[in-house]
């Protein structure tokens, strides 16, 4: 893995601000679901905050994002307003998609979030289409396509990366490798030694990075974005990370050896990044202010989600086609 110098202070603060919002949001979602205030299937993101925050800090709001059902961290890092995101998770009419998508299908074009898919690997071919549009438009945008290690076993990964490479599409394939596809360790599902190796086999510029290291991840992201914007084509970033709360909420992670989980929690990227800020002479008070601001955003967003109305049942006839379907 590439070792890198520490990112600029402002960049690290930016990454921390996004990552803390994600961490606190994840905690709040799990609390509210546990308390019965929300009845949803939830895919926890705790542990993967820094990977995506560093990635999104390296792109612009109008760059595109395609992500997956475990996507809360990506969506928040890309900048979807918390109120609309929380309301969509709760199935409310005030949500990003009027409650018609739900947590697994978030779309928010205003922040570039074009697709969230519930089908493993399926976002990859679609990301190519967004990249193709940018290439034809010459609009300078890049597309970030997030998926997990498990997605690299599906055909869409291989078809999609190959096409991106032959057409030199401005797409960054961000594999957030948390080592487990649902309940199965990567070593039992993946013939190659790394995901990076798969990218190389398909001809792509491919890098492996400690995704939990904000500076290293940011450097890898920035390089991939510059490479794509310059018209050189796609990059596969294999960002090593871990998830602390199972495939979905309620999963006890029984298949993860205790020692592995303990070590991962010792390496929790959040306290490490926080300490890095302190080491850079950012005061405890300044950090606490960021955390308090995020807490207030989440407080407001979660209340908004609970207080908002559900959509009308008739909504099912709208947006199926471009004309309303008769009752």
């Amino acid at each position, binding site marked *: 893995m590439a070792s890198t110098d520490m990112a600029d202070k402002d960049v690290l603060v930016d990454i921390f601000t996004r990552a803390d919002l994600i961490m606190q949001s994840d905690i709040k979602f799990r609390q509210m679901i546990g308390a019965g205030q929300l009845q949803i299937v939830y895919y926890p993101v705790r542990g993967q905050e820094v990977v995506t925050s560093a990635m999104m800090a390296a792109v612009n709001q109008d760059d*595109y994002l*395609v992500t997956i059902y475990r996507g809360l961290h990506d969506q928040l890092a890309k900048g979807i307003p918390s109120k609309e995101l929380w309301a969509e998770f709760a199935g409310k009419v005030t*949500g*990003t*998609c*009027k*409650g*018609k*998508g*739900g947590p697994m*299908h978030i*779309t*928010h*074009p205003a922040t570039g979030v*074009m*697709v969230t*898919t*519930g*089908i493993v690997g*399926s976002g*990859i*071919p*679609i*990301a*190519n*289409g*967004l*990249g*193709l*549009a940018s290439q*034809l438009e010459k609009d300078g945008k890049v*597309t970030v396509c997030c998926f997990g290690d498990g997605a690299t076993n599906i*055909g*869409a990964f291989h*078809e*999609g990366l*190959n*096409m991106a490479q*032959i*057409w030199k599409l401005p797409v960054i394939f961000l594999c957030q490798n948390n080592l487990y596809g649902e309940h199965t360790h990567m070593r039992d599902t993946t013939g190659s030694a790394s995901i990076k190796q798969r990218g190389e086999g398909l001809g792509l510029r491919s890098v492996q990075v400690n995704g939990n290291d904000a500076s290293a991840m940011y450097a890898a992201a920035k390089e991939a974005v510059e490479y794509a914007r310059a018209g050189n084509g796609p990059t596969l970033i294999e960002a090593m990370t871990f998830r602390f709360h199972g495939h979905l909420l309620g999963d006890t992670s029984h298949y993860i050896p205790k020692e592995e989980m303990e070590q991962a929690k010792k390496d929790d990227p959040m306290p490490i990044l926080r300490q890095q800020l302190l080491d850079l002479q950012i005061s405890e008070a300044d950090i606490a202010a960021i955390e308090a601001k995020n807490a207030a955003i989440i407080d407001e967003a979660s209340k908004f989600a609970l207080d908002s109305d559900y959509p009308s049942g008739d909504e099912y006839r*709208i*947006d*199926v*086609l*471009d004309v309303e*379907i008769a009752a």
Partner: protein
Amino acid sequence: MSDTAEKPKDIMFAQALNMAMNKAMADDPKVILLGEDIADKEGGGVFKVTAGLSGTYGTDRVRSTPISEQAIVGAAVGAALVGYKPVAEIMLMNFITLAMDQIVNHAAKLRFMSGGQTSVPLTIRTTTGAGTGLGGQHSDMLEAWLAHVPGLKVVAASNPQDAYGLLYSSIMDDNPVIFIENTPGYFVKGPAPAADHTVPLGKASIPREGTDITLIGYGSAISRCHAAADKLAEDGISCEIVDLRTIAPFDEETVLKSVAKTKAAVVVHEAVRSFGTGAEISSRIHEELFSELRAPVGRVGSGYAPVPFSPAIEKAWMFSQDDIEREVHKILG
């Protein structure tokens, strides 16, 4: 007016498709084509349907692709989400199975699941059709699968003029459209369309008026319906033909109006009869006109088997003009 003005010359179905794409690309720079071998360097498509278009519009807009059906459709979905009007060619309809996730889970649903924030104005052209010994994996008619998916439109033309008008409308439509072509039918000739000829989606046509029974079909069924109607006319039976043109959503109004007049109907398609589109159309007619019908609506389709290779078995399996005539006689007694 010149007395030397000629009748519109006849063109092949495949040429009509080429002309429609040519017009769409000229009219709208957002129209792009993706598919295996579609650029001229690779032959302009294995059936030459896209011949010449890459020369006119460049290989940025007319892209030959790897043999990667889900990557083709996925790329088309993504480009459609941000304002392009991609036409993806899936060479043969059986290959659509490889792209079903992109079609069913994404193209069809993204408008709905995004609460209308995005749309997928994508056209998938695909050809198929039995009768020429292509066997079990190159000839299936799978329209019923697709018609069952909310959010997709499904179109099949029966003649060059309609093919031109329907393909142009499909490309310009703001919904994902599956445009089904018929491989043996590519070489069938018919009058050339005027350049500005269009056919709206969702509107059936009545190419033959009649009084005794309505034959309802689309695509490859229509020529056989005409042949059957000619033969039945010799027995004094007057058939009306409804060419659906758009299979989903189908023009229920035209179908019901015709059957209300004739009081009898047969739905005809090349696809396997069981669980085919004929079941849905027949059922809708029964729901609305049950008490007026002289007999239950008949259905003609192909047998419950994969498309066979040997001509002897393929012929026995495949729906035919004879089947239509037999069904009409059965219904009219």
